């Protein structure tokens, strides 16, 4: 085994960051020179390699300083730990909501078959459809995951109320339209007391939402931003890159549609190919030369 292979095998679990590549280079030059010195002092090549690598100690400690955590650790954090966030009572409630929803759908379909009155199935759906959906919403919002902190149950309840009023309003709209035969104007009028305020309240809730990402997610996000920053040089350049790409693709899709109408698909696909080439050129233009 040569020193390059040996070092690669030492750090195979780590993400190949620029810093780690640099360190591996440094360590390779260390090992090569150390082995050369040992050979010079009379040791045979194989023994020198064994001695030099034995002197290294646990290099993963250094890699931990340099590279991000091991890939596996991050994956474990993201996926394996989700079981931890699902206590039995939550699982039971999720399944209960699902069962009620299933029952609601079946009951709605059945009552749709046996009655000509549209309000009957709608009424069934109103009770057995909305309740489990709101239940799912509440459970989902208060669910802590590997990446997000849970929302407090009070705030989640506000969301549930807004969603409930909204869905009720939608049902009212449909029922008024069909049942009362009152026509569209009256149906639209029912939007005012239910749908409109609940939408406004929902928008308020969403806009005042806190960042619930967990610290390690935020850290990863920042690292990703830093890396893209390294690639593009400065943020303005990155913005220009996205503007150029956006313009390119809008033009490409427009050309694609136009060409399809004029000449058919046989030729129009070339617009997409041209856009792909253009995208690569733009990327080459904006990313920093290594």
């Amino acid at each position, binding site marked *: 085994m040569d020193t390059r292979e040996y070092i690669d095998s030492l750090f195979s679990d780590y993400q190949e960051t620029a810093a780690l590549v640099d360190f591996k280079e440094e360590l*390779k030059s260390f090992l090569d020179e150390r082995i050369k010195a040992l050979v010079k002092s009379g040791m045979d090549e194989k023994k020198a390699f064994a001695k030099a690598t034995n002197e290294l100690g646990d290099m993963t400690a250094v890699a931990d300083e340099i590279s991000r955590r091991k890939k596996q650790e991050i994956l474990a954090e993201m996926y394996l730990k989700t079981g931890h966030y699902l206590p039995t009572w939550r699982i039971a409630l999720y399944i209960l909501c699902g069962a009620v929803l299933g029952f609601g759908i079946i009951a709605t379909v059945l009552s749709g078959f046996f009655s000509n009155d549209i309000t009957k199935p709608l009424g069934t759906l109103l009770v057995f459809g909305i309740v489990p959906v709101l239940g799912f919403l509440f459970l989902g919002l208060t669910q802590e995951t590997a990446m997000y902190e849970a929302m407090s149950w009070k705030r989640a309840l506000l969301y549930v109320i807004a969603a409930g009023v909204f869905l009720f309003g939608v049902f009212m709209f449909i029922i008024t339209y069909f049942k009362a035969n009152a026509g569209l104007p009256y149906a639209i009028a029912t939007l005012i007391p239910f749908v409109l305020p609940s939408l406004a309240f929902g928008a308020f809730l969403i806009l005042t939402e806190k960042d619930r990402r967990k610290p390690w997610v935020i850290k990863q996000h920042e690292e990703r931003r830093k890396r893209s920053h390294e690639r593009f040089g400065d943020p303005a350049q990155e913005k220009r890159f996205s503007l150029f790409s956006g313009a390119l693709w809008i033009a490409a899709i427009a050309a694609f549609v136009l060409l399809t109408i004029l000449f058919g698909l046989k030729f129009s696909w070339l617009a997409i190919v041209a856009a792909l080439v253009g995208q690569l050129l733009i990327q080459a233009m904006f990313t920093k030369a290594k």
Partner: protein
Amino acid sequence: MEPILSSDLLRGHTDTIVLAMLMNADRYVLEIYNRILARTGEQYELKVETLYSSCKRLEKGGYITSYWGDETQGARRKYYHITNKGRELYRQNMLNWEFTLKILNELLRED
């Protein structure tokens, strides 16, 4: 009775040893390693990992900086250079050590 070198005790001072080695010249890690081996009469079983950990930690803290040398022949070497902050830390660590040694001698004396 033969005296035995306490590697543990030495390891606790790796940062200061590295700083001391860099006080008068920029050096690469193998050079530091060889100097430590030579000065301790090959008694100290210093692991390379300890040395690199120390260097990376000091670099992160801004006590030393590093740069690739421009060797025209042979492998390239990465040199470490001590900063003013590093010199400051060295002096502080030396003061701490001298003070601690005094106290330790006091404590170890037969009563």
